[in-house]
């Protein structure tokens, strides 16, 4: 563990080089593209900011707003769902805890498109799984929220719940039980214990979960497409349209850079405050 002449950099090198080439590199190229004149397809030194100006003036703020709003709502709702779940799993589930956690984790490994499709056949009116079963069993006719922004939100919450739950479980496991008892002993009620002790101590996990959920939602597209009936256009859909049907790479790239910038503005400050060593060590 000595500093001088540590082999650390040698071990880091292959990964770091890969990341520079395949992560930093593409970001650079996208940025370069975003500075090219509209609807061109080559990288030159004829830089222009017209795409950024257009991105702001052409109503792209609206899709961005929907994406940010969706991400915020999803983050809050998943946190509200995951918090009690994490507490129950950590403190009360006992030997069931690992089984239930595994059951909740499992779907992450089933393709997102499949699960969203399942959600859409479940929600479908008349002949859907829910509506059809209710009708066949009880003769009840129900409506549907399919093809609305709300349906897209339900889909986002569904897809991202595990991404909130697992960091939160890590966070909750960081709370020593005696601190909660101490707070109880010092007169704190349930709510005060949560606010004063549990939340601050679980904050690293909550922060990672919120960050992960928020950022993943920012890029989410399939939910609005499969469940939302494109009731609104999210930013990723707008970017894809720019690349595909509109054949305007520089503009698409400018929008991409915009999303990257917003992501970085959110992620970097939080990440710089997290102590990764402590978290991974537990």
């Amino acid at each position, binding site marked *: *563990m000595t500093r001088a002449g540590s082999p650390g950099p040698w071990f880091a090198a292959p990964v770091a080089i890969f990341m520079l080439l395949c992560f930093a590199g593409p970001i650079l*190229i996208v940025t370069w593209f975003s500075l090219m004149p509209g609807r061109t397809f080559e990288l030159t030194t004829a830089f222009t900011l017209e795409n950024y100006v257009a991105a702001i003036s052409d109503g792209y703020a609206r899709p961005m707003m929907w994406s940010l709003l969706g991400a915020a709502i999803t983050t809050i709702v998943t946190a509200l769902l995951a918090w009690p779940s994490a507490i129950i799993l950590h403190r009360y589930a006992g030997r069931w805890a690992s089984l239930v956690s595994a059951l909740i984790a499992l779907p992450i490994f089933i393709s997102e498109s499949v699960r969203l499709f399942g959600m859409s056949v479940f929600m*479908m009116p008349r002949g859907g799984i829910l509506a059809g079963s209710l009708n*066949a069993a009880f003769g009840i006719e129900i409506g549907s929220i399919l093809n609305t922004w709300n349906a897209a939100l339900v889909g986002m919450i569904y897809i991202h719940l595990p991404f909130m739950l697992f960091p939160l479980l890590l966070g909750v496991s960081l709370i020593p039980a005696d601190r909660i008892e101490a707070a109880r002993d010092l007169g704190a009620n349930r709510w005060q214990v949560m606010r004063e002790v549990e939340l601050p101590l679980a904050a690293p996990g909550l922060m990672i979960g919120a960050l992960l959920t928020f*950022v993943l939602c920012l*890029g989410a597209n399939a939910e609005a497409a499969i469940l939302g009936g494109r009731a609104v256009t999210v930013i990723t859909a707008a970017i894809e349209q720019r690349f595909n049907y509109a054949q305007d*790479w520089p503009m698409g790239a400018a929008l991409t850079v915009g999303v990257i910038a917003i*992501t970085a503005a959110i992620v970097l400050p939080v990440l710089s405050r997290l102590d990764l060593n402590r978290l*991974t060590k537990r």
Partner: protein
Amino acid sequence: MRQGRHLGALRTLWIAAILAFVYIPIVSVVLASLANTRYMRFPHRVWTLEAYGDALSSFTTWQLHSISLSIALSVVVLSTILGTLGAVAFARYNWRGRTWFQRFMVLPIFFPQPVLGLALLLTFTAIGIQPSWKTAALAHLVWILPIVTLVISVRFFGYDVAQEEAAYDLGATHVQVVREVTLPQIWPGIFSGVLFGFLLSWSNLPLSVFTSGPDTPLPVWLFSRTATNYSPLVPSVAVIGTVVSALIVVGAGLLLWAGRRLR
């Protein structure tokens, strides 16, 4: 005391509700695969495994699986090797610049995947690489390698380096130390890394969509067939794909177990 029992029931109910929320769509997929019409009217008039027959006899199903498998295996091999090296740098040694390395390393995890996929596609075309399953594997690596590195790092952090020094002191060579002390202890971490790498690659959609070119992996096919032109073939292939990945994981687990028993 009675209040405690109510609370307990409430907790069980809550967890049951969460599990239902998570599994209802998956059960719905299975139910949908048992129809023979694409204009589903549940409950089905005819319950049939027809779609599974079609899926299993179709070459496309095999092709989708072989492409997904090629990508996932490449990702597993590369991410495990690079990830183990990365984890050593991440957790085992204390060196100047380690904090920066750690932050840079986890950054891609917190990056919108579709944006990453698009950026990679632009780069591939800009430097003239034709998209194929190989570029898709490369794209997967950008997101999966950091996760695998973190997973292996967790194991390294819980590992007392003094053991290696003790082995040295007892006369082991560098190689012997790695083989006899280091590897056996971080092996569970590497195995979890393999598991994560495989499953995350197998199910990845947003990166594959942009970077797989003419080689269509399973999730991309499922997405394009869900988004356009649905038929019961789609859920049946989805179920088959999920079962296959589960079998691979269970198979790998059994192999590992058998390997340990033999030793």
